[in-house]
């Protein structure tokens, strides 16, 4: 799998969540294409030196969310059907989590609501210049 995962055990974020998010992100940006085969739990656990039960849990969660499918004896694959929609949903979820973190941090730092809104608008204007009229 050509995707790189960066797991930081020191971060307070649970390791299974870090891996779940990074796999979702890889699907959302197309780094893992629909129908692409994922490494086995064992291979990914060894590659990332993560506990196999942790990796198995991540696969189970992604399966339940319909992002990957497991065919007995053949391995796990990125879901092929309706993947364009799925990808949008996943992208939206990953983005929402990032926004939530940013807003929470701003709140913790005591940035007032209106100032925060201004900061967000400025970032949107910077990254979506074509939408400006």
């Amino acid at each position, binding site marked *: 799998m050509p995707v790189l995962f960066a797991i930081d055990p*020191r*971060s*307070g*974020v649970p*390791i299974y969540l870090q891996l779940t998010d990074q796999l979702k992100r890889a699907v959302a940006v197309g780094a893992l294409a629909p129908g692409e085969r994922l490494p086995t739990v*064992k291979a990914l656990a*060894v590659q990332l*030196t993560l506990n*196999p039960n942790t990796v198995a849990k991540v696969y189970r969660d992604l399966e339940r969310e319909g992002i990957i499918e497991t065919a007995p004896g053949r391995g796990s694959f990125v879901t092929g059907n309706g993947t364009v929609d799925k990808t949008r949903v996943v992208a939206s979820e990953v983005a929402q989590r990032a926004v939530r973190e940013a807003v*929470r941090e701003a709140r913790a730092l005591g940035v007032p609501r209106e100032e925060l809104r201004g900061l967000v608008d400025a970032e949107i204007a910077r990254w979506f210049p074509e939408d400006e009229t």
Partner: protein
Amino acid sequence: MIAIEGLTKRYGTRTVLDGVSLNVPGGSICGLLGRNGAGKTTTFRCSLRLAHPDAGDARFDGEPLRTATFERLGYVPDRPSLYPWLTVEQHLCLASRAYRSYDGARARELLATYCLDPADKARALSRGQETALSLVLAFAIRPALLLLDEPTGGLDPLLQRATLELIIDAASNGASVLFSSHAVGQLERAADRVAVLRDGRVVLAGDIEALRAAEKIVEATFDDGVFRSDVPALQGVRRWEHAGAALRAYTERDPDAVAAALARAGARSVRVLDRNLEDLFMDAIAGESPR
């Protein structure tokens, strides 16, 4: 399955193990943490009857330790027990005669992994190479039970990684692994459960994710540096801690609700801190009396 039950060991009047119990199911990696002298090595030694426990015992797949257990048990002691006058090759030869489960081809692979020269005498090996040879001998029988007492001690970063990969591979194949280390970050990646020893007792044990999820810290800062006396009696807050202008709530559930309540109580800033294994470990051993 490794099941240690009530292990107790006294040397004279000193109790070094005091009712240590822990379970490592198949496919699981349990990290054994503790300061130097907390009883980690004695736990291994008493489990394997290399030291005689005053009470308690260890069972392997439901059975007491017997000679046959060693056919599927790999042990790496904290101080490698090698024969200084024998070569690496001769150590493998001894193991091949001692264990029916010894896999010669696997041993060759492991020698290559650890960059060991079969012709070297054990007395010429560095500390790390001694550990490496112990690991080769332990893994060459494809063990279903692994007791590893600081198996990465003295190894360079590449060989530490190779060792973790072997441990994870073994657990993927269903092995039970008990693994002591001071490298908390490494353990946090590789282990799914942990037991922390302090003065010969298990002071924290369980599933790492569950332990991490069980407690969060909500930290609030108040503008005037004065805490309101009417800080709400919040559900699920186990204890409060004052640190300068900050107030910390140790909470067992719903940290966001606690954070919101503190914000309503007039806190200028509020943040939720997740705790990693090192934090939990430091907490568990806090206040230990110096020996």
